[in-house]
């Protein structure tokens, strides 16, 4: 089984705004070298997107849209919600 890194909304914000926070690229390279998969929960996209929209940060929202097209998201399901209670 592979190891998995989950992005929370703060990290996802850093990934889609590397022009403002430049330390994220070495971290992604590290994940690749260590063979660690990357995932984002749908709720994380929501948390970040909502805040970007409130601040009208169009460039960042465009980046987030591109991120969605290439990366994998974990959908919110009833099963996931119940399992989250146990963590």
């Amino acid at each position: 089984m592979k190891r998995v890194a989950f992005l929370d909304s703060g990290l996802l914000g850093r990934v889609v705004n590397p022009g403002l926070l430049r330390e994220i690229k070495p971290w992604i390279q590290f994940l690749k070298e260590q063979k660690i998969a990357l995932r984002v929960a749908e709720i994380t996209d929501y948390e970040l997107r909502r805040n970007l929209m409130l601040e009208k940060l169009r460039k960042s929202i465009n980046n987030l849209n591109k991120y969605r097209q290439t990366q994998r998201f974990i959908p919110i399901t009833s099963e996931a919600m119940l399992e989250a209670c146990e963590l």
Partner: protein
Amino acid sequence: MDSLDTITLLAFLAALMRLDNSLPADLQNQLNEIGKTFPSNVSKLHALAKSYSPLEQGYKNARLALQKDGERFRFALPEPDESSQLSDGKIIKFAIEVLNANDSVNLVKKADKESSLLGQFLFQLQRQTMSELGGVPVARPYPSREVESNISSDGWEEEEKSLDELLELVEEWEKIEYSSEEAEAFERVMERLKKE
């Protein structure tokens, strides 16, 4: 609508969002009938919810939470200015659409996933009516079983390709220039995310 009708309506919408399947045809028809005379028969939603067991508990829980908290959740949405607020008229318009839909459950769930103000409103409604009931976490669900099955079915090559694509995107994004106002706005975003 008076405040009780508002609570009934919102609790009903919250309960619909928690259903896994569409309503049975006869119940959907009853809902459509209430929708035709909206808002004069909103109170009938109460009886309707209690008549269908998969809906009943969610409705009761949501109603309790809303009664306890009044309409505070309406003001819990982070709003930078009045123009981005979801008006009562839009909420009522959406409620009418839900009540008159062919598949009310599907419609309300679809709207909940949207990144619009309505989606935010429904998410907030869902969070509010869940968090009051024993602290059910909705902020960051980590569905480990789904992740494990998803990842173990693919080879590492797919994951590596995905990370390479992301690195290319990051290189592209690093060239984007931001104004000082945008940088400040982004700092505010990061501060708010830390608090959430």
